[in-house]
């Protein structure tokens, strides 16, 4: 692990440059995610500024970018629609508290139990939802809207081949906003959906009654936000770990995310988390240290203060194009191969996660269902015992414990055994508990009644130990 000085100042040039690149790429996303959530663009912009700045100090993964994100924005839609912005800010603060507790109680480790299939389903569902959120902003509005979305997409995918330093979304925004203003095409703009305030965020306490009722309203949202935020943050941390060949402190990151959201809520920002796409951009642009995240946040705020007037003039179709690119980039395209190659049960878990999220519009429900489903599949798989016969040798395959004993006992009940002397081979099995020993005992008794001699062979030491503990009962027969 690098020391703190290294984490801050080990890569000054690279971090400053990449921080600027990320700030430019963050602005359209922060605005678009605010629109998805149904709040003013400033809520997402303030959130991105504050979260990035706080996480630069409090996070556990240097070089990772956190800000307002799509996953979180999608979760808050009903809360904002039914109760308004102040409740969102209160929920954001509570999200922070929950995440801090997660960090303190080292819940980051528990995230290891979320299987790959669920994580793949998570990113795919997120990509689909981000895309679906764009539909109302470009389908059936005007022909010119379609044209602008198409041109934006063409620019986004061809420009990076020729211009590597400036992010393509920024060029698309500048050029197409210019075209839209001078041509006078009738296009919806960011300004139609909200306003930009050219001032720094200020501290205020959300205007909600301090009552149990408020808590009842916001707690379910906060819990979902806390879980989803942490899940995406820890996934992103792993990706950044892999890209940079370094390690990170996962529990510190969980706590850091909490601190960032807690503070954001008091400054009028919405809950956020780490962003896979932006973090990848940061690392690719040379960012490695905490400085890159800090610069990204500060430069974003600076740009809004200076250029806020222009930001409201960005045509919506351009933003839609950028979001379509984000959703294409978020989707895990190797999933199709995965569906064919992965074990059936994994493929089902992945699909179930996606389908549940798409229907409920709630990533946390999909993750929960996915985890439960894969736990059930795991139990079914592990509790299956297969026995193969080889001469007078019966080979047990699988684990023998309370959930799997039925299959084991049934096999010997049904088997028609001709031999007088048989062996039960435990080289591919292990006895885990008293139920396992009990089942073996039951089988041995019933075989004895039929006049068959049983010898147990190749049993491993730990199974033997469990059997020996029950030795008194065994020999009494």
């Amino acid at each position, binding site marked *: 692990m690098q020391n703190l000085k290294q984490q801050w100042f080990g890569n000054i040039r690279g971090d400053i440059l990449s921080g600027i690149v990320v700030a430019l790429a963050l602005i359209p996303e922060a605005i678009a995610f605010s629109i998805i959530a149904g709040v003013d663009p400033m809520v997402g912009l303030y959130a991105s500024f504050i979260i990035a700045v706080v996480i630069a100090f409090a996070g556990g993964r240097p070089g990772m970018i956190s800000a307002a994100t799509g996953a979180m924005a999608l979760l808050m839609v009903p809360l904002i629609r039914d109760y308004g912005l102040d409740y969102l800010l209160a929920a954001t603060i509570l999200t922070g508290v929950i995440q801090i507790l997660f960090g303190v109680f080292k819940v980051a480790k528990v995230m*290891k139990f979320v299987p*790959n299939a669920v*994580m*793949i389903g998570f*990113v795919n569902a997120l990509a689909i939802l981000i895309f679906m959120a764009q539909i109302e902003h470009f389908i059936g509005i005007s022909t010119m809207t379609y044209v602008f979305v198409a041109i934006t997409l063409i620019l986004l995918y061809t420009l990076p081949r020729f211009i590597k330093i400036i992010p393509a979304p920024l060029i698309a925004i500048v050029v197409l906003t210019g075209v839209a203003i001078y041509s006078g095409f009738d296009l919806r703009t960011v300004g139609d959906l909200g306003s930009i305030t050219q001032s720094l965020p200020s501290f205020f306490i959300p205007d909600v009654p301090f009552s149990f009722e408020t808590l009842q309203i916001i707690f379910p949202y906060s819990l979902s936000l806390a879980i989803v935020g942490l899940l995406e943050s820890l*996934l992103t941390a*792993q*990706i950044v*770990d*892999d*890209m*940079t*060949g370094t390690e990170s402190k996962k529990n510190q990151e969980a706590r850091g995310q909490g601190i960032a959201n807690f503070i954001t809520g008091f400054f009028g920002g919405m809950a956020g988390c780490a962003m*896979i796409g932006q973090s*990848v951009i940061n*690392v*690719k642009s040379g960012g490695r240290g905490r400085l890159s995240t800090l610069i990204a946040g500060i430069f974003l705020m600076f740009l809004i203060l200076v250029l806020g007037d222009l930001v409201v003039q960005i045509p919506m179709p351009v933003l839609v194009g950028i979001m379509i690119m984000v959703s294409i980039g978020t989707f*895990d*395209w*190797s999933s199709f191969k*995965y569906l064919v190659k992965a074990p059936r049960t994994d493929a089902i878990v992945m699909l179930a996660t996606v389908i549940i999220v798409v229907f409920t519009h709630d990533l946390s429900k999909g993750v929960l269902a996915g985890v439960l489903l894969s736990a059930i599949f795991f139990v079914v798989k592990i509790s299956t015992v297969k026995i193969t016969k080889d001469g007078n040798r019966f080979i047990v395959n699988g684990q023998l414990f309370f959930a799997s004993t039925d299959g084991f006992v049934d096999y010997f009940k049904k088997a028609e055994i001709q031999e007088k002397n048989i062996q039960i081979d435990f080289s591919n099995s292990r006895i885990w508990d008293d139920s396992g020993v009990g089942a073996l005992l039951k089988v041995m008794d019933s075989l004895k009644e039929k006049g068959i001699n049983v010898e147990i062979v190749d049993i491993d030491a730990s199974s033997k130990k469990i059997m020996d503990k029950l030795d008194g009962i065994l020999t009494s027969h």
Partner: protein
Amino acid sequence: MYKHILLASDGSENAVRAAKEAVKIASCTQDSVIDVIYVVDFDKSKSDVLHSGSSEAIDIERRKKNSKVIQFLNDANVNYKTTILHGKPGPEIVKYANDKKVDLVIIGSRGLNALQEMVLGSVSHKVMKRVNCPALIVK
């Protein structure tokens, strides 16, 4: 002679051909080491992380991808070590070679035609131009 030999590998047949030449050269000098460099593209990280359970599992997967070359070097009975780098293959190989001041860079060529080279860019060509030491491109 050539003590520290960098062998750039993408796990392909081209890399195995390059490895054969590396072994020939390494066997000329006592205690020379072949440093096998395998570069993982940044864009691969996301799907690799999503599709494997842990960083250890990712490591095993990547070793598997490079196994043809490793197998060949094992059989050839030479001194070698493996290094996994992250980023764009060309620049990363050049940076590593120049930082570590290796004595020789050996790299296989994919044998692209003129059009493919224009679109995809030739890694071996870029590496050859930018390293500060002799480079051997194996066809």
